[in-house]
C-alpha cells in the first residue's frame, strides 16, 4: 500500500504534543491576575490597619489604546506614562484597595461590555453606549452618591456634559445620571488659513452660517492663484458621519432630528423642511469638494503642507494638536464652531461617560474611582495620553493654554452641542439615514425622496422594535 502522510507513530507523537499543549494552556489560566501583571500588594502608600478598603479589588474597564506600561506616542515619538501611574496614585489615596484594569479595543466594545455586564465582570465601565445599558437596568444610578458626597460637585464638569450623558433607567420616565463625563469630545469646523490667504478670502467667522461656508467654499474651488494647484473649497465624509453633518446643517436653521428619549416616545423628523434644506446644501457643497467623499476619499492631503482643501466640516479633536504641530501647521490650522440654532446649540454630543455596574460588589470604592477619574490628576494623565478632558479646570492647565488657539474653540464646542443628544446614533436609524444621504450624494434620489425614505424606514424600525 502507498505510504501515507501519517502513520501510527506520528499519531502518537501528535497526541503527546496535544497533551503538552493542553498542560501549557491549563498553566496559562490567569483569571486571578490583574492586567498589570502585578501582585495585589501595592507599594503605593502604607496600608492602614483596618482601612475601609482593606482587601478590596476594583476592576476598571477602559476602551482604547491604553497600556499598563509606559509607551511611545506614535505621532510625536515621546514617551507617555502607562496606567500604572493611575493605579499607584489611586491605591496610595485608598490604602488597602487594589485596582485592576480590563483594557479593550474600540472594535467590538459593545458586545464585550454587554457580556461583562451580564456577569458582573467589572465594577467601573467606560460606556459610550450608556443609554442602552441603563435601560436594561445594568447600571447604578449615581444621583444618591452625588447627593451624599459633600466633597463632590457636578459643577466641575464643562457645561452640558453631565446633562448630555443622562439616560433613562428601566422604570424611570425622567432622565437620570447614570454616568459622569469622563472623556470629552466635540465637533467643529476646521480650516486652512493659508488657502484663504492665497485666494484672498476672509477667514471664517467664529460662528459661520451655511451661506458663509457655501460662498467661501465656492470662491476657493479651482486653481490656486498662488501655487497653481487644484484646490477644493470644502470636504466632508459622505459615508460614516454624513448623518451628523446633515443634522448639524438642519440645526443651523432651527431644525432637529426629532423628539423623545425613550424608544416608545421617539419621533423622528428626518424629512422636515429643515432637513431637506440641509441635504440640499450638502449636495451644493459636493460641487466644491473633491470626488470620492462618499467613499471617504479626496482628503489625503489634509493636515499636510500640501493641503488642497480649505474647509473641513464635522471634525473632531483626536490628535488635533499633535498632528498640527508635527506637520508644522500651527499658523495655518484654525477652528470655527459648527452651526448653532437660535438657542446657541448645535452639533454632535460625543465622548465617553464613566459608570458603575449594577452588579458591582464594591460600589463605594467604585464611586471613589469615579471621583478620582474625573479629578485633575487623572484627567491630566488622560489628556497627556491623547484623550480629551471633561472638566472646566482643564482650561487653566499650562498644557492646554499653550495651544489655546486650537483648544479654546474645542472646549466651546463641547459646551454647546445639540440636546438631547442623538442617542439613536448607535442604532439602525443612523445607518438608514447615512445610506439615504449616500443615495442623494450619488444621484440615485433627490433630497426630498431620500429623506422621505429614511423617515419611513426609521419609523418602521421604531414600530417593530
Amino acid at each position, binding site marked *: 500500500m502507498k505510504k*501515507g502522510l501519517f502513520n501510527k507513530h506520528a499519531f502518537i507523537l501528535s497526541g503527546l504534543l496535544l497533551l503538552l499543549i493542553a498542560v501549557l494552556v491549563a498553566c496559562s489560566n*490567569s483569571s486571578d*491576575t*490583574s492586567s498589570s501583571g502585578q501582585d495585589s500588594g501595592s507599594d503605593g502608600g502604607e496600608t492602614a490597619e483596618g482601612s475601609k478598603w482593606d482587601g478590596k479589588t476594583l476592576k476598571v474597564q477602559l476602551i482604547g489604546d491604553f497600556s499598563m506600561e509606559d509607551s511611545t506616542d506614535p505621532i510625536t515619538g515621546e514617551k507617555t506614562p502607562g496606567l500604572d501611574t493611575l493605579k499607584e496614585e489611586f491605591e496610595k489615596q485608598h490604602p488597602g484597595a487594589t485596582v485592576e484594569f480590563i*483594557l479593550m479595543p474600540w*472594535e467590538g466594545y459593545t458586545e464585550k461590555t454587554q457580556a461583562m455586564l451580564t456577569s458582573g465582570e467589572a465594577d467601573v465601565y467606560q460606556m459610550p453606549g450608556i443609554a442602552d445599558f441603563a435601560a436594561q437596568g445594568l447600571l447604578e444610578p449615581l444621583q444618591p452618591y452625588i447627593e451624599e458626597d459633600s466633597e463632590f460637585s457636578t459643577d466641575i464638569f464643562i457645561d452640558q456634559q453631565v446633562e448630555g450623558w443622562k439616560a433613562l433607567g428601566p422604570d424611570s420616565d425622567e432622565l437620570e445620571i447614570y454616568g459622569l463625563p469622563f472623556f470629552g469630545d466635540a465637533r467643529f469646523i476646521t480650516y486652512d488659513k493659508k488657502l484663504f490667504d492665497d485666494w484672498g478670502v476672509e477667514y471664517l467667522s467664529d460662528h459661520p452660517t451655511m451661506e458663509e461656508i457655501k460662498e467661501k467654499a465656492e470662491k476657493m474651488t479651482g486653481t490656486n492663484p498662488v501655487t497653481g494647484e487644484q484646490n477644493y473649497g470644502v470636504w466632508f465624509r459622505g459615508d460614516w458621519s454624513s448623518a451628523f453633518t446633515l443634522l448639524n446643517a438642519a440645526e443651523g436653521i432651527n431644525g432637529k432630528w426629532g423628539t423623545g428619549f425613550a424608544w416608545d416616545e421617539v419621533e423622528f423628523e428626518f424629512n422636515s423642511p429643515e432637513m431637506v434644506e440641509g441635504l440640499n446644501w450638502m449636495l451644493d457643497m459636493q460641487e466644491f469638494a473633491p470626488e470620492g467623499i462618499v467613499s471617504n476619499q479626496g482628503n489625503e492631503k489634509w493636515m499636510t503642507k500640501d493641503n488642497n482643501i480649505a474647509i473641513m466640516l464635522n471634525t473632531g479633536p483626536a490628535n488635533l494638536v499633535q*498632528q498640527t504641530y508635527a506637520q508644522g501647521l500651527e499658523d495655518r490650522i484654525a477652528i470655527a464652531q459648527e452651526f448653532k440654532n437660535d438657542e446657541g446649540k448645535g452639533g454632535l454630543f460625543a465622548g465617553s461617560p464613566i459608570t458603575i455596574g449594577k452588579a458591582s460588589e464594591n460600589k463605594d470604592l467604585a464611586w471613589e474611582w469615579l471621583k478620582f477619574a474625573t479629578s485633575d490628576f487623572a484627567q491630566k494623565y488622560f489628556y497627556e495620553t491623547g484623550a480629551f478632558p471633561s472638566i472646566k479646570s482643564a482650561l487653566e492647565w499650562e498644557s492646554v493654554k499653550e495651544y489655546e488657539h486650537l483648544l479654546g474653540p474645542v472646549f466651546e464646542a463641547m459646551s454647546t452641542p445639540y440636546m438631547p443628544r442623538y442617542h439613536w446614533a448607535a442604532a439602525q436609524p443612523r445607518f438608514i439615514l447615512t445610506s439615504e444621504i449616500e443615495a442623494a450624494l450619488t444621484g440615485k434620489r433627490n433630497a426630498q425622496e431620500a429623506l422621505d425614505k429614511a423617515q419611513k424606514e426609521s419609523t418602521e424600525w421604531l414600530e417593530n422594535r
Partner: protein
Amino acid sequence: MISTMSHKKADKITTSVKFVILLIFGVVLMAPFVWMVSVGFDRTANISMPFPPRLIPEELSGFNYGIVFENGRLIQSYINSAIVTITSVAIGVSSSLLAGYAFSKGRFKGKKLLFIVVLCTLMIPMEPRLIPLYKLFNSVDLLNTFWPLILPPLINGMLIFLCKQFFDQLPDSLREAAQIDGAGEFKIFFSVYFPLAGPIAATMVILAFIWSWNDFLWPLVVLNNQDLHTVPLYLASFSLENGTSLGGLTMALATVSVLPIIVVYLFLQRYIIQSIALSGVKGE
C-alpha cells in the same frame, strides 16, 4: 534546419512573452504588499498617509516597528495565538477526521439526522451564540483562560462536512478487505483511511489555522487580561475611536501579523493542490 531554427526562435519569443506577462502580473499582485512593508518603515506615515502612494519611504525609519515590539506585548500575543491556534487546530482536525469517517463509512441509527444537526451548526453565526457561550464558560469559571477558544472548535460543522465528502471518495472495498482481515473500526480508520487523509487534513489545518488565528470577537469577549490577548486583539488595541488608525503603525502591525499566515501557506500549499486533485478520485 531553417524551420527548426525558426521554431526554436518562436518558442523563445513565446517563452519570453509569457515570462514578461507573468512578471507584470507578479509585480501588480506584489505591489500592495511591498507598499505595506514600505509604509511601515516610513516615519512620517503616522502624521499623514503618504499620498500619492510611494514605494520608497520619505523618512526611512524602524520607528513604527519599535512601537510594535515595545513592552514585549507582540511577542506575548504571538505566543498566545500559537498556543490557541495549534491546540484548537489539532483538536478540531482530529475530531473532524473521526466524525467525518464515522458519517461516511459508519452504519448506525440516526446517522443522517445527526449529520443534518452537525450541518445546522453552520447556519448559526457567532453573534447570537456569543452571550449563551459566554455564560456557559462563566458558569464553569473558565473565562479569562484559553479554554473557551480551544473547546468550541471541537465540533466544527464545516470540517466534518469536508471530511465526510473526502472519505466518501475513498472506496468501501478497502474497509471490507480490512474487516475480512479481522480489523476493528479503529484499526481500519488508523491503518487504512487515516494514512490516505493527508491532503484533506492539510486543507483542514490551513482552514482551521486561518479561522483560529484571525478570530477576533470571541477572544475579545472571553479574555480580559492583556497578557492573554491574541494577535488580532493586540492589533485592534491600536485603533482609534472613530475606526481610523495611524498609517505607518497600522502597516507595520499588518506586516508582522501576516507573516505567520504566509509561512503556513508556503509550507502547506502543495497539499491544498493535492487535495483538490484527489477530490476527483472515483471510489471504485
